[in-house]
């Protein structure tokens, strides 16, 4: 039952994050979405994933709140109640297949004796490589933007 409620919360907050017109409200919905994700991971025994998602989600939400305050503008002719009701209705409809197709009873697990640290240590090379690739691609993107800007100013 709890898992079904968490699933409904996930879908509802995702729909609200997309549908709400105000950027700050959408970010708050995304924060609730991250909370539901943390609960889902915790109930499945993935404690490390839950804690990490909570930490990363807090940082992401703080950045998005700052950006939402800067980027938000009052939408013209907005109907907040209508969009809210549409999002809630869509969430209820989308939750039905997720709940009806569920199988079995969830038994809470405790993540004792999981070789997490060994797995993380073993994959450190891939972690460093992936982060290096991301930094390289971001640096290339910034270089291209600056080159275009410099070329535009010359023209």
């Amino acid at each position, binding site marked *: 039952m709890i898992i079904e409620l968490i699933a409904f919360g996930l879908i509802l907050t995702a729909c609200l994050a*997309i549908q709400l017109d105000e950027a700050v409200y959408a970010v708050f919905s995304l924060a609730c979405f991250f909370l539901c994700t943390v609960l889902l*991971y915790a109930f499945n025994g993935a404690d490390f994933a839950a804690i990490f998602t909570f930490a990363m989600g807090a940082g992401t939400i703080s*950045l998005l709140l700052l950006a939402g305050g800067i980027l938000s503008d009052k939408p013209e002719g907005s109907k907040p109640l209508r969009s809210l009701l549409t999002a809630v209705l869509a969430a209820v409809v*989308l939750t039905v297949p*997720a709940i009806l197709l569920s199988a079995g009873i969830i038994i809470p697990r405790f993540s004792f004796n999981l070789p997490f640290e060994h797995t993380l240590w073993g994959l450190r090379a891939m972690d460093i490589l992936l982060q290096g690739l991301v930094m390289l691609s*971001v640096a290339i993107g910034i270089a291209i933007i600056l080159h275009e800007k410099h070329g535009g100013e010359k023209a």
Partner: protein
Amino acid sequence: MEYIILSAILMGIGIYGLLSKRHLLKVLISIELIAVAASMNFVTLSAQANKALGETLLILAFSTDTCVTAIVLATMIYISRKYGTSDLTKLAELEEKGEASKS
């Protein structure tokens, strides 16, 4: 609970937001939803199999995703301040006007 169905629904919501919304922040939120939906598969399936590989992959992917989100947000704020709008349609119109004036 069939978590694959749940993550597919969440990914569908994210893709809908990515295709239908024109505000820059909504696009970024949609991308975040897609990323969380995809990583949810790894974590839940590995937890059911009592292995830690899915959690490890979540940590690797999520840390990278957060860095990319921060850089994309900085770019969005720069674009919004420079052009005075966060709407993708208006930004495309501005770009067309700029190309037309150059030609």
